């Protein structure tokens, strides 16, 4: 494999893959938990009309009152789901 025979080039290629910001990586690793939270909230909103109404009225407050602390992306997704269903 001659394309890697130049060590200077190897250095350039190594520089091309710096670590992604640690917070991004952590959020992606915690994403399965965020998905479970999303699923739980959505299925509850489908089954409980009062909860759904509270979410529509004030999403963040309604979730906080029930002990949920979803991140921004999950909040946006729930908002989308409530608007489109």
């Amino acid at each position, binding site marked *: 494999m001659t394309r890697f025979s130049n*060590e200077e080039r190897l250095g350039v290629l190594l520089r*091309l893959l710096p670590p992604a910001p640690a917070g991004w990586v952590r959020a992606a690793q915690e994403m399965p938990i965020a998905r479970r939270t999303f699923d739980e909230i959505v299925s509850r909103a489908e089954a409980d009309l009062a909860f759904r109404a509270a979410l529509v009225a004030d999403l963040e407050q309604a979730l906080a009152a029930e002990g949920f602390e979803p991140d921004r*992306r999950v909040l946006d997704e729930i908002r989308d789901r409530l608007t489109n269903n």
Partner: protein
Amino acid sequence: MTRHSSLTDAELVRACRAGDSEAWNELVERYSRYVYAIAVRGFRLSDDDAEDVFQDVFTRIYLRLDSLRDDSALRPWIAQLTRRRCLDALASKSRETPAEDELMYEETSDLTDVEEAFAVREALAGLSETCQEMLDRFFARDQSYRTIGEELDIPSGTIASRIARCLGRLREQLEGRNPPAEGSRG
């Protein structure tokens, strides 16, 4: 090193499908630099857009892992998801700022380099832990000889020659002079 870091991509995918959270952590760890580099180097996205793409790509991977037909084809699948998502981000940006409509968003040559860089990174896994640390810290993390010396407890005056030796070993690894590392991925 975790017990999952020596798994092949196909083994990792199977473990993720079985709900193994450590496997998921390893998958994110293994591909985080790759997705980040495609977004930032390949498509030159801003940090905000790159973060959205990054999270969205890993969400899609997680949700669609069952649809991957060939478990060993994880990397091309991730590359495709990331490129599509980057193009979407650029398209939506150009709709927001019509003045940029005439700009052509083409894949840069950096994208090809990112693929090569990933191959180099995989070969890096075949070197000693010290070499891996040293090369990663110096090149990818842009750390000084002094910082590397302090953090690895190595005299800073010897760092340059050690880096040169490690680079030589990496080259040999890539040229196939060394046998592939045990548990090499793919």
